[in-house]
């Protein structure tokens, strides 16, 4: 194997693949990145039996071949190289990297011990890459991090013909977003559970091309795989083999009051007041017509904070408590200047949704299905007293 490539091109491809390397590999070879040259194409791939990543770049090759090299070290080196063409040559059990006056010689790992990457399942449909990245980002924040309940660490992906619905919950909040796509076969239906972090990471980094292809193989024995292919990059992840909660039953169908908030000002106020809310102590929101008063802290050995913010509020005055992080996560995800919060009671979930600026006030009564379909439920904190 022998090839030449521009430094940025190589560094980007290696860095992208290296992100999905396992931090603590179960076997040493899984810490490697496979370099594979065929014709004038270099593929840079990694696989840890859960997630695979493969990026392709054009190179000027004189010899084909494969080499498995320590992944993180390769990523650090390629990032640090000076901006000059890079020449890479496999020599026996070592890989040499030359760039301008710099030279590296790395030990390689046994290629034959490396697992072969799963083949990409057949394409299920195509989605615009930016819309996909936004939708996944909005939903994945609500997923849990505690893997004792695998269901809560996933994003539910439901396909219903030309509509995809994403949902995630950590049992304290629930985020749901719909988006349109082009299914490969009309009338396609499917529902899978994708590890939230992997999906969020992939969606965010597959935006270099206009579209992303989603591929699905729902194996019969819990071996299902989701594939995502963007321009020159493709990744697969094993699906979670768990039932997702019946989240539609949790979504409130009506509300007794609602507030329309200026997202920026309300977020800033909530962040300031939350400075005194330690260890998940609640942010108290007192809604009255025209105003919300935010309060936190309160006991003698804690700090206290209070701030008023102008909002539109329609309904009986309501005092409701939220975990500040959960509230701020939702506010950061609506991606609109104004947001609407619907309430049923101080103990029932509040629903945060974006308010589309160009719509007239009547439209707010029934949120549009797409593109502004984002809904973020927050279960309130029961306040003392």
């Amino acid at each position, binding site marked *: 194997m022998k090839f030449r490539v521009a430094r940025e091109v190589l560094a980007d491809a290696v860095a992208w693949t290296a992100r999905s390397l396992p931090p603590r590999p179960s076997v040493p070879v899984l810490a490697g990145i496979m370099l594979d040259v065929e014709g004038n194409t270099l593929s840079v791939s990694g696989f840890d039996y859960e997630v695979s990543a493969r990026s392709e770049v054009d190179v000027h090759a004189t010899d084909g071949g494969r080499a498995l090299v320590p992944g993180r070290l390769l990523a650090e080196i390629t990032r640090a190289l000076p901006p000059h063409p890079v020449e890479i040559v496999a020599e026996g059990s070592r890989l040499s990297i030359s760039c301008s006056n710099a030279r590296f010689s790395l030990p390689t790992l046994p290629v034959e011990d490396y697992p072969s990457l799963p083949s990409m399942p057949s394409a299920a449909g195509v989605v615009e890459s930016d819309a996909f990245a936004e939708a996944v980002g909005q939903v994945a924040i609500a997923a849990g991090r*505690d893997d*004792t309940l695998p269901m809560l660490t996933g994003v539910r992906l439901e396909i219903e013909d030309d509509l995809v619905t994403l949902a995630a*919950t950590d*049992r*304290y*909040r*629930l985020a749901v977003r719909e988006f349109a796509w082009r299914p490969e076969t009309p009338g396609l239906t499917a529902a899978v559970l994708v590890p939230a972090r992997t999906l969020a990471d992939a969606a965010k980094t597959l935006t270099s091309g206009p579209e992303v292809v989603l591929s699905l193989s729902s194996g019969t024995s819990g071996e299902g795989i989701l594939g995502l292919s963007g321009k020159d990059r493709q990744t697969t992840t094993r699906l979670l083999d768990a039932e997702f*909660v019946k989240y539609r039953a*949790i979504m409130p169908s009506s509300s007794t009051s609602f507030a329309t908030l200026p997202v920026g000002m309300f977020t800033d106020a909530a962040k300031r007041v939350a400075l005194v809310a330690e260890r*998940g*102590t*609640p942010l108290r929101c007192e809604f009255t017509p025209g105003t919300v008063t935010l309060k936190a802290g309160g006991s003698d050995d804690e700090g206290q904070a209070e701030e008023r913010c102008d909002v539109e509020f329609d309904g009986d005055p309501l005092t409701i*408590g939220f*975990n500040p992080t959960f509230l701020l996560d939702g506010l950061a995800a609506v991606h609109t200047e104004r947001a609407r919060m619907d309430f049923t009671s101080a*103990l*029932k*979930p509040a629903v945060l949704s974006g308010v589309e600026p160009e719509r007239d006030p009547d439209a707010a009564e029934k949120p549009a299905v797409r593109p502004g379909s984002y809904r973020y*439920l927050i*279960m*309130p*904190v*029961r*306040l*003392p*007293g």
Partner: protein
Amino acid sequence: MRRDPSILHLDLDAFFAAVEQRDKPSLRGRPVVVGGTGGRGVVSTASYEARAFGARSAMSTIEARRLCPPGTAFLGSRFAAYRRTSDVVMALLRELSPLVEPVSIDEAYVDLAAGDHDLSVAGVTALATDLKARIAAATGGVTGSVGIGTSKAIAKIGSELRKPDGLTVVPPGQELDVLHPLPVRSLGGVGPATAERLHQIAVTTVGDLHRLSLVDLTSLLGQAHGTGLHRLARADDDRPVVADREAKSVSAEETYARDLSDPVRLGAEVDALARRVGTRLRSSGTSGRTVTLKVRRPDFSTLTRSSTLPQPIDDPRLIAEVAHRLLAGIDRHAGVRLLGVGVSGLATFVQGDLFALDEPPTTTDLPVDESPDPEQPAPTAAVPWYPGQDVEHDEHGAGWVWGSGLNRVTVRFEGPRTPPGRVRTFAGDDPALRPGSPPDWTPPDPSAPDPSGPDPSEPDPTPPDPTAAG
């Protein structure tokens, strides 16, 4: 040691048994033993009538049954009833002083110096006499013994001196006169082992102890223990009365009549314990972030495992979920003798749970089980009735379970405000019969305590076959 006799110690007399006798007129004047009624049950409290036969707290129920005559009532505990009565007493103490330190459900110290009182011996004697009368009136006849002195140790010893219904004020300067004739066992911290070692060097009274040098005592009993006793023998105790010792955790545990190893049964027991803890958390408006599981194996080795959650919880189902996970991580092949579930890291707020929306946020209707007594049997689905339990019958009204077994339950229909009542037997699953709330004893009955004596024709009011595991 203070200059004035300003520390009061109250110890309610045979408290659980006294509440039982108040609520169950047919048991007044008769031996009553409260505690675990199962095979490994332990006596919590014996009434003075039962103590006459040798029954004592912490004795195994089996031994108490051997000592006590037929006609002795062996009852399971009703913590909700004890807690209600205790709350009334503690409220009376708080009227005396803001500094009240409850030691347990039936015992507390009061710092009279923090109230506005005449602290002369005559003054505190009058105060205590009045307090005792008010406690008896407000609780429907439960009595307490009071000790007053210049330190906690003296006040506590004072309350022990004339039990039951006693009052002892130790005047300043006379502490040693009271203390020295007492056996060394009267001092806190002198158990059978220490008493035996002291006895070997001919120390039997506190006065004997007083004559020992500090060096002798510490070489015999160790530094901390020796120093402590040396001071106590001199009535040298300056511990303050500390009010509002807030609960740091809420827990419930259970010792089983037979070691458990069946995973289904273990799971059900964990659920029952989680329910008790969750109910208590909810009734006190608290929640906690750390769930602890305690497992004691047949060889008495005890393990605890805990898990801290991102959010404080009070939902019994969530507590149970975590406890199940902790249990799964413990080797329990040899069986389980005791299980305990606790919640700590308490907070006053609860992050709601989207998955628990169908559950009402508070469950005030459930029986409130207030105390983490290790031997208290939880009424589980398999054993719905336990002796002493409050029940309600559609036709006959309120009463208590007199005995049960072989799918029969015998109930005596009476209450604190009725004369001794009739006994009736029902099928164990009689739909008209259901668990009841502790009866209301107020307003206090103006007549004297019920004079009716024991009826010798009545059989032992305990279940014929206490298969009840607990």
